[in-house]
């Protein structure tokens, strides 16, 4: 790797002799963008927290499934509101206790972040893959394939997304239900991922279609074709490397959107349900009269953490875009 930090900040591009790949250039530019780097750390922290949630919970000594209202009844009134001020924040329960069943808010938030980010990451991966396959196929192959895929995109874009989600979630979940067992959490997770994926890939698909449509006419593709390379190889070796930039940029914009959309579904009660911790479900708890009238402190933990995450991710997205494409930044 090139040691970019030691270079003068003024104009590294001016030093002609060192040959760098576009990826290296991008990395260099990104590292110099302090806001971008800080945001990246914040985002990383969130993912780390999600990944390590069980470990942190173990060290901290509580878990998000214990019904503290029954374990420690002295901390609650009979309606399940923590007796101590500020939602029962104490050395033992850092973020307080959830009104109702009295779950530990700190670990619930950690696990909620873990579940929400995991789902959103999966949706992002699935939509990016679909977007690449269908977008590039439509753009490069053209003709009937292009027509078909474009019409499918038009059609899917006309579906009211949120409405579709809330209507289809129960249907998808019911496909898996066994009469004696609880609906396993993974079923809801798979359902959440699949409905969001179904209506999530079109914008990226469209962009990639446009990009590969333009690439198809370029000389180096023509050259590859003339030299007898099969279409699969051309797509892999010539087209894909050239669409990495829009994919990365789009993906960094898409992920926070999926996070908020997933949270929205859980907020409406069709996502993950209690006792599985989830970011959005905490908002739906926060919107109950019980919380709004008695313990407003509670709503700040999911609220503020989500704002920080989204702001950091958006800033990171801007930095990534700038690093790839310095022209648009000024």
């Amino acid at each position: 790797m090139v040691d970019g930090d030691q270079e003068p900040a003024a104009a590294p591009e001016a030093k002609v002799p060192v040959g760098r790949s576009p990826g290296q250039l991008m990395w260099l530019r990104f590292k110099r963008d302090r806001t971008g780097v800080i945001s990246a750390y914040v985002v990383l922290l969130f993912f780390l927290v999600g990944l390590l949630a069980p470990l942190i919970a173990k060290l901290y000594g509580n878990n998000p499934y214990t019904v503290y209202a029954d374990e420690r009844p002295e901390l609650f009134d009979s309606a399940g509101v923590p007796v101590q001020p500020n939602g029962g924040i104490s050395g033992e329960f850092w973020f307080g206790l959830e009104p109702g069943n009295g779950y530990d808010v700190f670990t619930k938030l950690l696990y909620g972040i873990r579940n929400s980010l995991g789902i959103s990451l999966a949706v992002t991966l699935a939509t990016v893959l679909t977007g690449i396959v269908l977008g590039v196929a439509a753009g490069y192959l053209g003709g009937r394939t292009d027509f078909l895929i474009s019409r499918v995109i038009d059609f899917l874009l006309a579906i009211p997304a949120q409405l579709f989600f809330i209507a289809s979630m129960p249907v998808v979940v019911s496909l898996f239900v066994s009469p004696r067992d609880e609906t396993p959490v993974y079923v809801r997770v798979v359902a959440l991922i699949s409905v969001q994926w179904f209506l999530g890939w079109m914008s990226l698909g469209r962009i990639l279609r446009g990009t590969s449509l333009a690439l198809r006419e370029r000389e180096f593709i023509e050259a590859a074709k003339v030299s007898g390379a099969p279409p699969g190889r051309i797509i892999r070796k010539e087209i894909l490397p050239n669409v990495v930039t829009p994919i990365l940029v789009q993906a960094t914009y898409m992920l926070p959107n999926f996070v908020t959309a997933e949270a929205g579904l859980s907020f409406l009660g069709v996502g993950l349900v209690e006792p599985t911790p989830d970011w959005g479900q905490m908002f739906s708890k926060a919107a109950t009269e019980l919380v709004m009238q008695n313990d407003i402190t509670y709503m700040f933990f999911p609220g503020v953490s989500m704002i920080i995450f989204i702001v950091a991710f958006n800033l990171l997205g801007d930095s990534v875009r700038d690093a790839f494409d310095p022209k648009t930044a000024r």
Partner: protein
Amino acid sequence: MGGKRVMGKGGRRAYAALSLVAAGALVLSGCSEGGSKEGSNKDDKENAQRQQSSIDFGDAKASTGPATEVPGAKPGGAVTVLQRDSYAHLDPGQIYVSDEMALSQLIHRGLTGYKATGEDGKKHEVVGDLATDSGTTTDGGKTWKYTLKDGVKWADGSAITATDVRHTFERLFAPFVANGPTFIQQWLADTPGTGYRDLLKDGPYGGKHLPDTVLETPDAKTVVFKFKKAKPDLPYALAMAGYSLVSKAKDTKEKYDKAPMTAGPYKIQEFKSGKSMVLVKNTNWDPKTDPIRHQYIDRFTFAFNKQYEDSTKAILDDSGANATAVSFNNEVDAGNLSKVLADATLKSRTVAGYQPYVGQIDINLTQKEMQDKTVREAIAYALPITPFVRAYGGTAAREVAGGLISPTVSGYNPNFDPFGKKKKPAGDPVKAEELLEKAGKVGLKLTFGYINTPEGQQYSTAMAAGLEKAGFDVQRQEIPAETYYDQVGKVKNNFDIYHTAWGADWPSASTVIPPLYDGRQIQDGAANYSHVNDPKVNADIDKASTITDPIKAAEAWNKINEYIVKDVVSNIPTAYYKQTQIAGSKIGGLVYDDVIGGIDPRRLFVK
């Protein structure tokens, strides 16, 4: 074609800094006080005390109108009534839910009714409403004779006659009357279940009538009910809203359900299903014929679709029309409850009391694993009741129950608590685990069907957590709220345990024990949700049903209750339902009536 976002770098750094400031400001404003400290609930205990005394059957003198004036009452004014559910049924024959029962106190009249004998809504006697007294029997309850009062009229001015009474009861056998109570039909036909319809297949509409050996109307004022077996509870049953009278001349069959003829102090001026309703004074109602009702208010305007939160907030607001607002059936919602009770001025606008319901976890005895009594005992010990109490707003809304008979029903025994639920409402996992080990069933899979409402989700999760501590493997299964009772009411359902609640139809356990625990009543849609079929219970039910002395009967019913809970262990009592209701500051005569199970709408006035 998305809009491109362009950011200068300096700008971005600034956002990062400002974001922190903004987030900090948010955190600062997010401090809250803790939960409420609860006061005693002495009032409710007193409520319970009085319930144990039984209700008298009043004579002709007690049945004579007008009703005693409410202290301080004056006529006039309009009241807004905020209700959650629109009225699905206005035809008396179809009325069986509490909101419609409360409304029918204002518009419908029956042969008998409950007259409050005090100012606090706690003491009642059954008196004649349209009839001159609560009924006379000379043969221990097989034959009952009623005579209509002079001068009783429908809202259109026509007289109420024995023909109307005959018609009222005959049409209950018609197939379209499917939602109301079925007690008297079954008694007349002397058959349990739905077989009673065979007595008069199409009701009176095909020109057929009940024979004089069943129902006799010798003249325009006299009605005689004749049963094969003694039915000492008839005066209670006749007081149900579902047995209010229907006008023969104005009967429009199915359409009567939206526009019935009425006889009470108010008549329906306008009814928009799902939206609104207006009641105005019925000028043909004569207070001298009515010992029960008043007619102080000029006009009731109902608004539907008001959730508990909505009605509570509107009434708390107390400005303009909200000062004369009330809800007959909405309670103060769980979120606002502790705040309202903590504020003395707000609390003075509330009334509280028991609802007739008793919650219970039914253990489905059709399931093989549930037929082991030790397992059932383990469930009974392990089950935490606190989640249920919490989910509905705390001890002001639910009181941990010991038995299956409500404090509002004769025969209630406050000391009965075989599984120590009152002392250990969060369950006794240690004891339960011992039992489960003894049964050799540690890790037993327990399918818990729960009603998919926010409350149901909340309490079922915590109950499951409590049961798991004792070593059960709980599998929660959500059931849609609208079809919940249909699903758990199936004899072959897949669930091991589920929660149901049942309210007595009148203050006697004869409306609780037989429908819920008689093993011969097990069928799809019947209320024996745990499918208990115990020979001793069945035999005791038969014995208790024939006891005519109310005090002795109450004792007998309670014995069966205690046997079911303690020895059969098919049903685990969870809580007695209570509620707190609130009214605007200009509403007078506000009383919680235990028989109605809510605010008494008949005595309200505008201050």
